[in-house]
């Protein structure tokens, strides 16, 4: 099976002021096949955020390998990691993280902008994305003019616009009421059904249950590996 992402024996140490070393990840290995939909759960301090940061190429492992789309990215420099993020990764955050002064279309455009794609085609693609998440009539709205659910849909459109290998979702429904959360989850499921690989961090069991499988983190290690649905 072709792998979308693969972490192999990854360690991450943080050195605090005063020389105390915090071992956030202590040898984690996970395979993410293409089309996977994984939920990562764990208490705070379990290392799930650290893992997500590593998967998102926002941080580098102290030790171990991270292979994204067949490319070892664990030793790349800051500029190259930025490039990887803009080309191969899509982010969905708990608090949407849209840029306040930009319109819906401009927010969706950002990953393409940082790839250097500034053209009519790029703009066209952003408008398509907005249509796909049902915001075709909100193109020139600012984030503050949108509801939470709408904002999260903009974020999803933004995560998809660069056609990423992996979508990373950090508590995507955490700030939403259950009805809107359901809407977002359906959207993620639909994306997964269309072949997108989704890695989602959550601490809500019923949200995690929507994924194919759930990984539990504890003390910087993978605690268990619970399949929650049929693996394709």
């Amino acid at each position: 099976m072709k792998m979308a992402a693969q972490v192999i024996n990854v360690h991450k140490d943080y050195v605090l002021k005063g020389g105390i070393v915090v071992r956030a990840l202590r040898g984690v290995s996970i395979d993410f096949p293409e089309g996977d939909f994984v939920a990562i759960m764990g208490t705070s301090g379990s290392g799930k955020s650290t893992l997500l940061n590593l998967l998102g190429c926002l941080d580098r492992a102290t030790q171990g390998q991270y292979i994204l789309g067949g490319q070892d990215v664990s030793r790349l420099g800051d500029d190259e990691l930025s490039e990887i993020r803009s080309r191969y990764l899509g982010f969905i955050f708990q608090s949407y993280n849209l840029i306040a002064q930009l319109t819906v279309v401009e927010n969706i455009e950002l990953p393409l902008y940082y790839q250097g794609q500034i053209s009519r085609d790029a703009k066209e693609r952003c408008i398509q994305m907005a249509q796909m998440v049902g915001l075709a009539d909100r193109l020139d709205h600012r984030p503050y003019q949108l509801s939470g659910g709408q904002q999260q849909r903009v974020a999803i459109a933004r995560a998809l616009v660069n056609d990423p290998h992996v979508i990373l979702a950090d508590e995507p429904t955490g700030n939403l009421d259950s009805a809107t959360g359901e809407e977002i989850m359906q959207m993620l499921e639909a994306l997964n059904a269309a072949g997108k690989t989704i890695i989602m961090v959550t601490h809500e069991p019923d949200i995690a249950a929507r994924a194919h499988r759930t990984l539990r983190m504890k003390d910087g290690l993978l605690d268990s590996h619970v399949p929650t649905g049929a693996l394709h």
Partner: protein
Amino acid sequence: MSPKFWQTLRLGLKSLLLHKLRSGLAILGIFIGVTAVIWLVGMGEGVSYQAQQQIKELGANNIIVRSMKPPSDATRGGGFVMAYGLMRDDYDRMVSNIPTLLQAVPMREIRKEARFLDKVTDVRVVGCTSKYQEINNIKLSRGRFLSDKDFEQADNVAVIGDSTARMLFPYENPVGRFIQIDKEFYSIVGQTEDKTPSGGIGGSLAAQNFNLDVYIPLSTLRWRIGDLVVTSRSGSREAEQVQLSQITVTVRDLAEVDETADIIKTLLEKFHPTVDYSVTVPKELLQQAQVLQMMFNLLLVLIAGIALLVGGIGIMNIMLATVTERTREIGIRRALGAKQRDIVAQFLSETIVLSATGGLLGVFFGFLCHPAIVGTRAVMKRLFPEIIASLPPNIQQLEPRLAPWSIIAAFLISVGVGVIFGLYPAQRAAKMDPIEALRHE
């Protein structure tokens, strides 16, 4: 320019418009700085241009030797007559002894009253030769200037200044009329054009108003008025005996000016034990004025530089606040693939837009310098005529001259200030850890 450049610029402008007051205040410092540079340099140029014009009018090839009242009563002659200054012999010695001399123009001036019918006015009677017109650049509005023949025959003819003519002949053409000075009548042969009075220059030359002159042949002045001038003052009498007030020596070549001036000084020293003359070299004055102007400009640039520096610090302050406030935005952008240099470009473009806007505004207001000064003066003249009249002519007639270099320099410096003071906040933004930045509330 790449589309990314324009996009960056556009987005920078957009974020700035989000905080209009803050951006406006940041611009203000640079704007004032740039306006200050242009105005100050403009006024400085205006003042020194005036001075240089006056000096140039004296002629760079000229050396001006003037009689000067000695400080004590160490004068020639005895009794109550004070005799001093240049003598006709000095003139002859100059003409025969100075090889580089092209011409020497002698002149004698006396303050007198001139009359026509019932009108009287104070004038400066200038006894001179026909050459005097050329070296002082006197233009005539009517008639002719004094000729060599007038001088040879010592005729009673006169050319009157513009103001003199207005005083004595308000309603008629003065040419052909006779004015009376002391007991003598002089036939008017010409009238000069209005000539702007010159301000004094650095103490070595007094202010001159040519409009109140009456020119008569030097020979006529000698025979009709004489060297001796007696002035009666409440109970006492003073008498001055001066043969020549001024000799203007012209040399052929600019390079010979200094050498000739030395010869003149040596010549005069021999026959004048007390220093009752002054030698003025316009060329030296011109050089002094130019050096002075350079120093003045340097000083102005320094002051303006400080203003711009303060403006730059203001911008840096605001950008640092902006960076802190937008930490989260920086985190988002980094997560979405912005490289460090993209973040630098973003914030730097904002500072450059700020400072360049300030610079452009400053240039615009810089161009308003001339109308503003002229307008203010006109208003002041109407409201407080005495105050304006009491100002020295240099200031009364000050015309600011915009120096193109100052406009270009001020604008470039303002943009430079933007780059220099924007770089640190931008670097700080770019160096943020994206994870920390994303977590920032």
